[in-house]
């Protein structure tokens, strides 16, 4: 066991920190106050930031250099994330592409698809949103009904997706469509890549609890998607293979790639600052301490997981527990902050907005009820029923 960073890693951290400080100041000077990336204007402004990251190869540090990354190790990725959140850098409006689609493209995409999709994603030239959920298929993804009919030279899409985060502002959507009309549940699905300006595709944004227009519904009405809409084709991983391709994406969504410890370490650091600015209160001190310990334990557990991954022992079903832990920690630490603020918590601010956002954590990417089922069944071996 060695819990210290090497001198190379410390240098990498210094470089990241220096870059972030300078460029964040520059970016923030270009607009007033805090800006959400989940509104139309805010999204556009965030794309400027994405382009700054990409220009100096900070957009996707762990990707190969050929696609715009730095070939950084998982450790360096962790360090970068810590510095990113520590610096108070903004949310990544490209994250659904980078963290959900890209791993799938790396695993299932053809070389031609990879060469086209990945650099444009990293540069934020294309902005990808996910098309998983449907009005009647939330947690039960296998029940989806949006369909793609094979026609000469392409697909005709029909149906509706919903809860697509930032869908109103993105350029492309990735998602599952039922390509075998006779099929049921997990079978007969295909993973398609769809430009949102395809004729017959309509996007309607709608509001989230935290006040942002963060969600969209996407309607497909006899929309013709040509096979050559994207170099390498619009099917990822083969016709009818959609479920297994998507599940690979889902598991990366649940693991390390979605929620780096840096985010919670930064949030608890801000919570501690908030506590210090308020009158002493032993009950709140205890709750702040608990939140800090949970964030720290999350960091330690991640170090353990990354060690295993690096040494060829990849994480298994405990990723379900990881998702439960960070999402409940996120709610908890924001609730402590609101209780610290007392009556002032009602005013809209970073903590109240963060709390509203945190409430989605136990729901999305597989509800925590489903995660607990998975942990009990796959980790502990309880019967599925």
């Amino acid at each position, binding site marked *: 066991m060695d819990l210290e960073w090497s001198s190379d890693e410390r240098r990498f951290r210094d470089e990241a920190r220096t870059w972030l400080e300078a460029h964040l100041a520059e970016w923030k000077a270009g607009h007033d106050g805090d800006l959400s990336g989940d509104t139309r204007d805010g999204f556009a402004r965030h794309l400027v930031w994405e382009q700054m990251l990409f220009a100096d190869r900070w957009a996707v540090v762990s990707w190969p250099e050929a696609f715009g990354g730095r070939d950084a190790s998982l450790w360096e990725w962790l360090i970068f994330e810590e510095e990113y959140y520590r610096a108070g850098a903004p949310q990544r409006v490209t994250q659904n592409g980078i963290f959900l689609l890209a791993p799938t493209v790396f695993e299932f995409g053809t070389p031609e698809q990879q060469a086209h999709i990945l650099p444009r994603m990293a540069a934020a030239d294309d902005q990808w949103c996910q098309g998983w959920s449907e009005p009647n298929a939330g947690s039960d993804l296998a029940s989806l009904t949006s369909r793609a009919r094979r026609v000469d030279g392409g697909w005709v899409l029909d149906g509706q997706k919903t809860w697509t985060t930032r869908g109103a502002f993105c350029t492309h959507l990735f998602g599952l469509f039922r390509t075998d009309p006779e099929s049921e549940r997990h079978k007969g699905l295909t993973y398609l890549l769809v430009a949102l300006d395809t004729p017959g595709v309509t996007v309607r944004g709608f*509001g989230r609890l935290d006040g942002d227009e963060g969600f969209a519904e996407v309607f497909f009405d006899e929309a013709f998607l040509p096979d050559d809409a994207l170099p390498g084709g619009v099917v990822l991983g083969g016709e009818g293979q959609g479920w297994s391709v998507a599940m690979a994406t889902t598991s990366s969504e649940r693991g390390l790639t979605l929620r780096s410890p840096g985010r919670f370490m930064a949030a608890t650091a801000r919570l501690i600052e908030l506590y210090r600015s308020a009158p002493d209160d032993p009950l709140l001190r205890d709750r702040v301490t608990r939140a800090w310990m949970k964030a720290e334990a999350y960091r330690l557990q991640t170090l353990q997981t990354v060690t295993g991954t690096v040494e060829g022992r990849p994480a298994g079903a405990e990723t379900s527990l990881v998702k439960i832990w960070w999402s409940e920690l996120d709610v908890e630490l924001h609730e402590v902050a609101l209780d610290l603020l007392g009556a002032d918590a009602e005013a809209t601010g970073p903590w109240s907005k963060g709390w509203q956002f945190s409430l989605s954590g136990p729901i999305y990417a597989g509800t925590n*009820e489903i995660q607990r089922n998975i942990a009990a069944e796959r980790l502990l071996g309880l019967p599925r029923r």
Partner: protein
Amino acid sequence: MRFAFTDDQVAFRDAVRDLLAKECPPEVVRAAWPEGEVPGGAKPGEGARADADRLDAVWRALADMGVLGIAVAEEHGGLGMDELNWVLIAEETGYAALPHPFVETVCVAAPLLGRADLADGSATATVQPGRDEPVPWASADVLLAIDRDAWTLTVHDEWEADAVASVDGARQLASVRASGGEEVGGAALAFDRGALGTAAQLVGLGRRMLDLTVAYVVERKQFGVQIGSFQAVKHHLADAALDLTFAAPAVHRAAWSLATASPDASRDVSMAKAMASDAAHRAGRAALQCHGAIGYTVEYDLHLYVERAAALSRAWGTAAWHRGRVGRALEI
């Protein structure tokens, strides 16, 4: 010994319940939210579903029914009734997320100031429940500023208000600056009445969130079955019902303690506010979790009640503040 309301009290409650069900549906609550952009971004869909014409009508309807003057002395045109007679009605205003200063006007200001214009609905009051705390319903006609450390109460007819965006857009929150004003007695009683009214509203809000969620999980199917048939969903909602079932008697008892000027009244009010705050919070969490993504959208109604509960659970003293007061009353 009899721990139940009178038939008259229940009948009055039922009448208000019916009125609010008709006059204060979600689209009326939505009408009180600011139009269009809020600091965090757009509120699409709000405007389309809001019914602004009815916003004032519900307050007028309550005035016509005599509800607004329930605690105003008879010589000022009210009904001169005590806390036992309005606590159930406050609960209903919580259930409806009434976007008007019911607690501030009806429960706090009316019995203290004895003004006929508060009873007939032509004027409203608001309250700052603690020094430097934000003030809701900023367009009210009179402001009662309570200092919870010194236990003083100052009545202001004029003040400056800077709007503050609230998680509950209907609350018209503001940061206020007021000087002068008239100091009057009864600060502690006024605070207890406000905390009691707020506790009652929180119980009502908890019930509303629970009802909405029960209806949703019975309707909604996933994995081929109603999601309300999953044991985890059942237990979330049973837990919400549990806390509400035991918070409600605490609220009702506090009303009795105030109405009878019991020496334990402040303790009992604090117990009520602490339990109601926690129960509404738990109901809100359960409601959001059992709804899934739809509960997290502004187009669906749930958020109107979740945001109100979030605001009220920390207004008029947090649960921890009130438990501290209970602890002192217990001499521990």
